[in-house]
């Protein structure tokens, strides 16, 4: 689609970007209005990956929904599962064994590291640099090998259960995880920082590009690294703790200007904080079962409504469940952070050049499985 129109005395060009453009990380379409090369307006079009998860959930029993939540943000399956099982456990009042609680924190943080590794790789790739992408995949491979040894799957784990975890970690796995973290912190992470922060192209392309003022971020419900990049230290792990996060010490990295650079650097530093949390989890991991006692028979939630938020790597992920006492939810709603963040695209892009759209989209890092649900 390409149309030209005259508006007052400006020549505007309307250009279609996507939905199958390789830089859009999925299927995202943007209708861009340009004056010369400058963006006058941008209209995001989403829904190409829509499967109506929420309708499917209404026909599934509660434990059957867990593998579906993997497929929301397919890069952070553990975090998605955690939000859902916490919502159901909260409704049922199930006690989860301490070992399972700590392992859940450990796996969420490990997933967060793997998630930001991919973010780092694809951001650099979108700027034209191939090396960081390959480095990120070098480290991700080893991370996914570790996940595979525990869960049997590399991306979509179906590992968390209502009441605990499917299985305990195998012998020697924790030691290997520690070795991986040591390697990542000492060798890979400084390499990432060098490749980005001492790269002039990266600095020129991201600094002062896509500035998100903090008041706009708050008004548009931004969360996670997008909000923290704008200098607001909000993190649900601290503000609304779940699964025992209140017992862990960690910092919340924040940006200063809220541009694409800050959103990227915030995520890189969060990897270090995640490592810190995992080390604390390893040092206090108790022995014991990983599965709690569930009520006998078909799992039914008492009639009522339940809302559970978790800090997914992309931001504030929440599940809103309405139960009528049956074995399946009467209504399930997923509050997905990427969907909310994409609303910001027109505000971030106006006044920038067409090439900056790619950078700004990458710095928000929406995952379309979650946007379109």
């Amino acid at each position, binding site marked *: 689609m390409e149309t030209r129109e005259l508006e007052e005395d400006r020549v505007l060009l309307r250009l279609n970007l996507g939905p199958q453009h390789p830089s859009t990380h999925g299927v995202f379409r943007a209708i861009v209005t340009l004056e010369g090369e400058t963006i006058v307006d941008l209209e995001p079009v*989403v*829904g190409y990956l*829509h499967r*109506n998860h*929420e*309708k499917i959930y209404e026909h599934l029993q509660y434990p059957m929904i867990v593998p579906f939540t993997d497929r929301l943000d397919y890069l952070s399956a553990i975090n998605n599962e955690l939000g859902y099982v916490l919502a159901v456990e*909260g*409704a049922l009042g199930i006690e989860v064994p301490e070992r399972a609680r700590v392992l859940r924190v450990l796996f969420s943080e490990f997933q967060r590291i793997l998630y930001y590794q991919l973010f780092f790789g694809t951001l650099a790739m979108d700027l034209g640099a191939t090396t960081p992408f390959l480095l990120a995949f070098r480290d991700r491979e080893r991370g996914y090998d570790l996940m595979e040894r525990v869960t049997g799957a590399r991306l979509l784990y179906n590992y968390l259960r209502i009441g605990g975890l499917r299985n305990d970690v195998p012998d020697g796995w924790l030691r290997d995880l520690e070795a991986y973290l040591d390697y990542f912190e000492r060798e890979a992470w400084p390499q990432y920082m060098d490749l980005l922060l001492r790269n002039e192209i990266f600095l020129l392309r991201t600094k002062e590009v896509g500035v998100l003022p903090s008041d706009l971020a*708050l*008004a*548009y*419900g931004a969360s996670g690294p997008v909000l923290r990049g704008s200098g607001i230290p*909000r993190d*649900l792990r601290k*503000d*609304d703790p779940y699964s025992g996060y209140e017992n862990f010490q960690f910092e919340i990295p924040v940006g200063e200007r809220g541009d694409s650079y800050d959103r990227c650097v915030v995520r890189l530093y969060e990897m270090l904080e995640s490592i810190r949390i995992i080390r604390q989890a390893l040092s206090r991991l108790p022995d014991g079962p990983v599965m709690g006692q569930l009520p006998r028979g078909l799992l039914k939630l008492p009639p*009522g*409504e*339940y*809302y559970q*938020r978790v800090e997914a790597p992309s931001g*504030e992920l*929440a599940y*809103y469940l*309405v139960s009528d006492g049956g074995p399946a939810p*009467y*209504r399930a*709603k997923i*509050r997905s952070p990427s*969907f*909310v963040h*994409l*609303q910001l695209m027109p505000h971030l892009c106006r006044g920038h050049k067409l090439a900056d759209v790619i950078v700004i989209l990458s710095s928000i890092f929406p995952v379309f499985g979650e946007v*379109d*649900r």
Partner: protein
Amino acid sequence: MLFGRFPGLEETGGPAGFWTLRVPPEHLLELGEELRLAFPHLSCLTAVDFRDRLELVYLLYSQDQKERLCLKVDLPPENPEVESVTGIWPTADWQEREVYDMFGIRFRRHPNLKRILLWEGYEGYPLRKGFGDPRPPRTRKVRPR
């Protein structure tokens, strides 16, 4: 104080941990204006179809995420219409579009009310309870032995 100013406002049951108010549709905008400073974070806006009525749900948090408030608005299942809150919480923009897309609730004075996840021209509202698949049933083909 609020109850005196908005007739019809009443406390009701909601999600655990939330103070829940049932708001008459005509007072939603005024009440929202009143609450925007105390509850700037609209976490979630959605709807539930109870067959005899549609229920809009607004889940709000205070700036420090400690205070929680839930607003509920009942609407009739035929031609449901309510005032848009995009002027108060801009984040409602796409979430209202999604509710329109899935439940057919029209939001007055919404800047760009059109379908978001489904395409323009799609018939029906999938998350309504009465929604059925309009496609003809699939016939099963059996290969002759």
